[in-house]
């Protein structure tokens, strides 16, 4: 082999070595990047799954606790003799977050009452000051006041949240309210007229103003446990709500 050829092959070897090294480096970089990417995507997937699992509603109990409609428009849900812990639920039939509360924690609240672990008091209030939400809310609240049977009231309450209108449109039309009441089992012959004449609209408004002032409600929904506001991180997470109520009953 001539000297020139030897030098050329040495140069080739060095070049090949460098190329291999670059390739190794590149592969290593690619592996680290893929690993970080996989971990990040897995964390996002796990986190989403965990969020969904936290937001899983309980199955409603077959037998509900007896419900009583009180003269001030509130409704008590409690087994006989159960006086505490007291869970106060302040909600507006038109408020989307109240619907979210009902969807997530509504069954837990009712189940706790059915199990005799809590006395639940629903306070339907109308908090909106602008249209169309203000009138929507008062129409629904006034209609609920036309029902004197606790069981029917609770079924109507659930129907109202299922059929909650968007905040941008006029909803809770009077004839709809009447038919939802009848679907909820209301048989009182005075019910349709009570709803269509909005007999209790003024009561609904004055009661709301009084409750907001006296219970210091700043927004709906507010869930109180023995008079103290529960944070959203508890009220909206069924398992945590159950845990808090059970702990208060110890």
């Amino acid at each position, binding site marked *: 082999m001539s000297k020139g050829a030897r030098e050329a092959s040495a140069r080739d070897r060095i070049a090949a070595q460098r190329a291999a090294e670059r390739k190794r480096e590149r592969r290593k970089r690619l592996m680290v990047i893929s690993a*970080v*990417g996989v971990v*990040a995507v897995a964390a996002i997937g796990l*986190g989403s799954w965990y*969020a969904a699992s936290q937001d899983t509603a309980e199955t409603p109990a077959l037998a509900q606790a007896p419900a009583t409609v009180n003269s001030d428009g509130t409704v008590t849900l409690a087994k006989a003799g159960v006086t505490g812990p007291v869970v106060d639920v302040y909600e507006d039939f038109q*408020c989307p977050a109240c619907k*979210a*509360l009902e969807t997530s924690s509504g069954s837990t609240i009712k189940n706790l009452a059915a199990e005799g672990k809590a006395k639940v008091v629903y306070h339907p209030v109308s908090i909106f000051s602008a249209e169309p939400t203000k009138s929507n809310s008062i129409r629904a609240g006034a209609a609920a006041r036309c029902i004197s049977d606790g069981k029917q009231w609770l079924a109507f309450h659930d129907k109202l949240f299922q059929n909650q209108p968007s905040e*941008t449109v006029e909803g809770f039309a009077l004839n709809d309210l009447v038919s939802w009441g009848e679907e909820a089992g209301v048989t009182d012959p005075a019910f349709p007229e009570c709803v269509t004449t909005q007999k209790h609209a003024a009561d609904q408004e004055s009661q709301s103003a009084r409750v907001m002032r006296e219970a210091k409600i700043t927004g709906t929904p507010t869930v109180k446990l023995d008079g103290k506001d529960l944070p959203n991180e508890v009220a*909206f997470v069924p398992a945590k709500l159950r845990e808090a109520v059970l702990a208060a009953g110890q």
Partner: protein
Amino acid sequence: MAADIPASRWPLSAQGAVPWVTTIARLVLGGVLIAAGWLKIGTPALSVQAVKAYELLPGGVATAVGYGLPILEIVVGALLVLGLLTRASAVVAGLLMLAFVAGIASAWARGLRIDCGCFGGDGTLAAGQEPAYLSELLRDAGLVLCAAWAAWFPPGRLALDSALGLSDPPDHHDDNEENVS
């Protein structure tokens, strides 16, 4: 005019500042994302409600976004703060911010009266509260700029990308672009 000259031909003093600006952009954007995700992650039901308040996505999609968005924000925010996969994270963060800008602008244009739900809450305004669309839009537009800068000049100082040798070496920049993105 300095603005017309590509970064490589800026005076040395300005060139030295570029990576630090990237670091600041990463920290601001990442910090906001982490805070926004953290304030939402404890109440998935409200996070879903806040997405639904925009009335843009069909129910099932809105629910999935409501569950996934807080953790996505936290993970992307953490990557940005650490300077890990900087360019990819900045691109994702920028796209997120553009989506938020589009959502808020659309809510405004349709006359909805909602809170952006950016930092928790359910998307409804408190009694007597007015929508703050303009300031929300300006804030998110500023964050889009942070994302664009970090995607353009990654990874900046104090970045794990540099420590792990993941950033583009200057001599064969083109080789590595595909790895990063």
